[in-house]
């Protein structure tokens, strides 16, 4: 009977030790994929842990392949100032700075998954709003993906993923802009996309518009560079350039405008 008790105690101790081993910075290590395969945000995280130090590599949604944000040193946080980071880390914070924006990832464990809050802040005076998004990640099925530290330095940037910022060279998946769009200038825009070329006719009112304009632009990555001009259905006669970001298949956002163009966000 004593032998049985000793055996049980030993097994219990072993289990406790194993659990304690998992409840530390090591629990963050590995290759993680977003549980939402249709996310337009962060698709994958690779986290490498060495001692009390962690490195995080992120990928954002891009087409045909995801954008590599590169690898950054992350900071680990425990529950108290005298806690052991190695065994007690409960949060990682990783900071990506591609220049025009800053992305701060707050990474926590949630069971055998990771809960990630992403805070994107724009520094380029583009008028885009800082935004926060939450994601859940699970361990990647097979370790065949990119290994931690294997990222190409200078890869594409966090803010460059949809819906955050501009990423010349990457093409958002399944984009067909053809259709009727509404804009925050109160106008209606009739858009046609043929491959990488986009046209529109926009007007404030179908009968007696104050303004009406046409646009022709070229898509490069998730950016449209375009010329626009008013046409004499309306009374205002101006012209200029537009740079639009394809935030999604149903949303366009103006990054820069000249000629006094009023609209900034198009949706459908």
């Amino acid at each position: 009977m004593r032998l049985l008790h000793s055996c049980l105690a030993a097994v219990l101790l072993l289990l406790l030790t194993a659990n304690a081993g998992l409840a530390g910075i090591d629990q963050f290590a590995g290759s993680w994929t977003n549980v939402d395969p249709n996310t337009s945000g962060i698709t994958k995280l690779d986290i490498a842990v060495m001692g009390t130090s962690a490195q995080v590599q992120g990928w954002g949604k891009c087409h045909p392949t995801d954008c590599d944000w590169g690898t950054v040193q992350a900071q680990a946080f425990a529950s108290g100032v005298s806690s052991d980071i190695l065994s007690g880390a409960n949060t990682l914070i990783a900071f990506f700075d591609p220049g025009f924006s800053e992305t701060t990832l707050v990474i926590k464990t949630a069971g055998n998954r990771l809960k990630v809050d992403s805070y994107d802040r724009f520094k380029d005076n583009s008028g885009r709003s800082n935004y926060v998004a939450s994601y859940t990640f699970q361990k990647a099925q097979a370790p065949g993906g990119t290994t931690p530290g294997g990222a190409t330095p200078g890869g594409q940037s966090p803010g460059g993923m949809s819906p955050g910022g501009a990423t010349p060279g990457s093409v958002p998946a399944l984009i067909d802009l053809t259709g009727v769009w509404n804009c925050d200038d109160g106008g209606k825009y009739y858009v046609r996309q043929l491959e990488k070329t986009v046209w529109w006719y926009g007007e404030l009112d179908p009968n007696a518009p104050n303004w009406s304009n046409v646009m022709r632009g070229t898509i490069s990555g998730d950016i449209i560079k375009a010329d626009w001009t008013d046409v004499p259905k309306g009374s205002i006669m101006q012209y200029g350039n537009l740079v639009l970001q394809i935030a999604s298949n149903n949303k366009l956002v103006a990054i820069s405008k000249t000629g006094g163009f009023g609209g900034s966000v198009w949706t459908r």
Partner: protein
Amino acid sequence: MKIFLSLATACLLLLISLSTCTASLAQFAGDWSNVDTNTGGITTLSISISGASPNVHAWGKCHPTDCDWGAGTAFAFAPDVSSDLSSQAQALMAVFDAGFSETTLFIKPQGNRLSVQSYTLFKDNSGRSNYASSDVFQKSSPISAAGMIAEIQPLKQFNKLEVLPIMRKIGDN
């Protein structure tokens, strides 16, 4: 009857308008106290809003009066890149840099309270561990902020953390 209906409609519209206003950057504004009166961390937050820019002022636990951390560098975050920050802000981030350490607060509304995640990073190679803490704040009656502002930096608060009675006891043993 018509007057009654008109009044009811007006009240409803007012309520809707008020609740819309609540889901905005303005919901963060005000003076907030930690619901845990025995906290050894942040005791008070004073948040003001100017346009789409927040200003976050924090105080940490100190004796005899709380330590004034000053105003951090703060930013608001909306749910989407094209959202209007003033009307749709969902979170604030505020960074307080005391030189030897840096504390980042992530502030989110939680009903009529604020949920605050705090991350303190030590930069002084003191061997102290970076640590995270979580607090809930409720609206407080207006504080006499002018009287509380002092030249004391967060350092004082961390010193305080180090000499908490329980820590002394452990150290003595």
